[in-house]
C-alpha cells in the first residue's frame, strides 16, 4: 500500500440530458494504484460536490462484477483494457503515470444516454420480457435429478447463463448488435430440457424485439466475445442462428 499516487488526466463525457450535446471535460487526478476505477470516480464526485458542482453520473451497484450495472467505455474498450472483468473490478494499477484516460458512455441508438455516462439499457429488459423465461406451474421444490442432465450440457447452459446483461457486447460491437446477449439468453434455456417447449417461440420473439429496438446485425467480428466481462462464447450466436432458422422452418407462426 506504499505505492506512490498516479497522476492521470481524465477526459470524461458530460452530457446534461438525452437531448443536449455532450462534451468531454478534463479532470486532473492523483489516485492510488490500489483504488478501483469507480472509487476514483467517487473521489472526483466528492470533490465536485464539495465545490458545489454537478457530480458525474455513472451507474454501479454490486461492485463485484456480478450485477452488470456498471459499464463505461474506457479508452475505446467497454469495461476497460483488462479482459473478463467489469468496470468495477478494474483497478488503477493497470494504468501508468501520466496516462490520459477517455471515459465514454456505451454508445448505441438502442441505449440512449440519460445523463453523462449513464445510458438507458431497458431495451434489454424488453427483449427478456419477450422470451427470456420458461413457463412452469409453481409448486414445491422438484426432486433433485428428476430430470437427468449431463454435466457438460449443464455447464454449457450455466456458461451462457453467466451473462450479466451489462450491454458491453452492444457497446463493443461496431454494429451495436445485441446478438451475444440475446444468444446467451436463448442458449441458457435451449440447452436444457425445461427450455424445450418454448424453444422456437422464444428465439423468434426475442429476435423480433431485438430488431425493433434497432440493434445492429452481427458481422462476426467477435469484438463482443473479446470484451465480454463473463467471456460469453460466440458459439451461442451460432446456436441462436440455428434455432432461429429452425423456428422459421418449423413453427406455424406467420407473424414474427
Amino acid at each position, binding site marked *: 500500500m506504499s505505492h506512490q499516487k498516479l497522476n492521470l488526466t481524465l477526459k470524461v463525457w458530460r452530457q446534461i440530458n438525452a437531448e443536449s450535446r455532450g462534451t468531454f471535460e478534463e479532470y486532473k487526478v492523483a489516485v492510488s494504484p490500489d483504488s478501483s476505477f469507480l472509487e476514483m470516480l467517487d473521489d472526483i464526485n466528492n470533490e465536485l460536490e464539495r465545490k458545489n458542482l454537478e457530480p458525474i453520473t455513472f451507474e454501479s451497484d454490486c461492485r463485484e462484477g456480478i450485477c452488470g450495472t456498471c459499464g463505461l467505455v474506457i479508452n475505446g474498450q467497454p469495461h476497460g483494457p483488462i479482459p473478463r472483468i467489469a468496470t468495477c473490478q478494474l483497478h488503477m494499477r493497470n494504468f501508468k503515470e501520466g496516462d490520459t484516460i477517455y471515459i465514454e458512455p456505451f454508445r448505441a441508438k438502442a441505449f440512449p444516454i440519460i445523463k453523462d455516462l449513464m445510458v438507458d439499457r431497458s431495451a434489454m429488459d424488453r427483449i427478456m420480457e419477450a422470451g427470456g423465461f420458461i413457463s412452469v406451474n409453481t409448486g414445491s421444490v422438484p426432486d433433485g435429478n428428476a430430470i437427468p442432465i449431463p454435466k457438460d450440457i449443464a455447464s454449457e447452459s450455466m456458461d451462457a447463463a453467466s451473462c450479466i446483461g451489462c450491454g458491453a457486447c452492444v457497446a463493443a460491437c461496431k454494429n451495436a448488435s445485441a446478438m451475444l446477449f440475446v444468444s446467451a439468453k436463448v442458449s441458457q434455456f435451449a440447452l436444457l430440457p425445461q427450455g424445450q417447449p418454448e424453444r422456437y417461440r422464444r428465439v423468434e420473439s426475442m429476435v423480433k424485439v431485438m430488431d425493433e429496438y434497432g440493434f445492429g446485425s452481427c458481422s462476426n467480428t467477435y*469484438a463482443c466475445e473479446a470484451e465480454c466481462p463473463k467471456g460469453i462464447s460466440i458459439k451461442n450466436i451460432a446456436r441462436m442462428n440455428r434455432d432461429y432458422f429452425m423456428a422459421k422452418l418449423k413453427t406455424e407462426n406467420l407473424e414474427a
Partner: protein
Amino acid sequence: MGWLFKALNSSIGKKFVMALTGVCLILFLVIHLINNLTLYFGPETFNTVVKNLDGIKPLIRVIEVILGLIFILHIFNGVRLWIENKIARGTGYTIKGSSKNADIFSRTMILSGSIIFIFLVIHLRTFWMSFNFDHTLKESHRYYEAVVSAFQDPVYSSFYLFAMILLGFHLNHGFQSAFQTFGWNHKKYFPFIEKFGMVYAWGTALLFASIPIYFYFYGGK
C-alpha cells in the same frame, strides 16, 4: 410467403442471405480461377477453353443471370447492413478500441467489398464485354493475346493486384463468417473451417494475382 420475406429481412435473415450468396460466390471464384489458370498452359489451351465455353453459350447465359442476381443480392444486402449498422451505433466513440478486440479483415468488409465492386465493373468492361461482344476477337479466337495485351498496362495490372489483395481480405473473413452465420460453429469442425478458409482466401487471391504479375513481366513469352 410473407413470413419468408419477413424472416429474410430480420437481422439474422439478412446475414443468412449474405452468407448464402457469399458461399455461392466462393464456389464461383473456384471455377473462375480454374479457367484463368489455363492461361499458364499457353495460347492454344486457353483459346480452346474459351471457344468451348462459347459453344455452350445458352447455358452460360442462364448461369450468368443467376450469378448476376447473386451478386446483386450480396451487394444490396451488404450495403443495406452497413447503413443500418451505422445507424444502430449512432454517435461513434472518440477513442476507437476496435483494433484491440477485432481483426482488420472483419472490420473492413464494406471497404474491401466496395473496391472489389469497382474492380468488378472495370473487369467486366475489359474482359467480359470484349470476350462476349467484340466481333473481331470472337472471329479470330485470339483471347489469350487479348489478355496478354491487357496486362501490359501497368496501371491496370497494379489495380488488379491491389483488388486481389483486398479479395483475400474479404474472403479471409467471409469464409468462416458464413459458417458462423449458418450456425455451424462446432468445437471439432470450426477450427478446421477457419484454417481452410484462410488457405482458400489467400490461395485464391494469390493465384488470381499471379496472372497479371506473370503477364506484365513476361508478356506471355
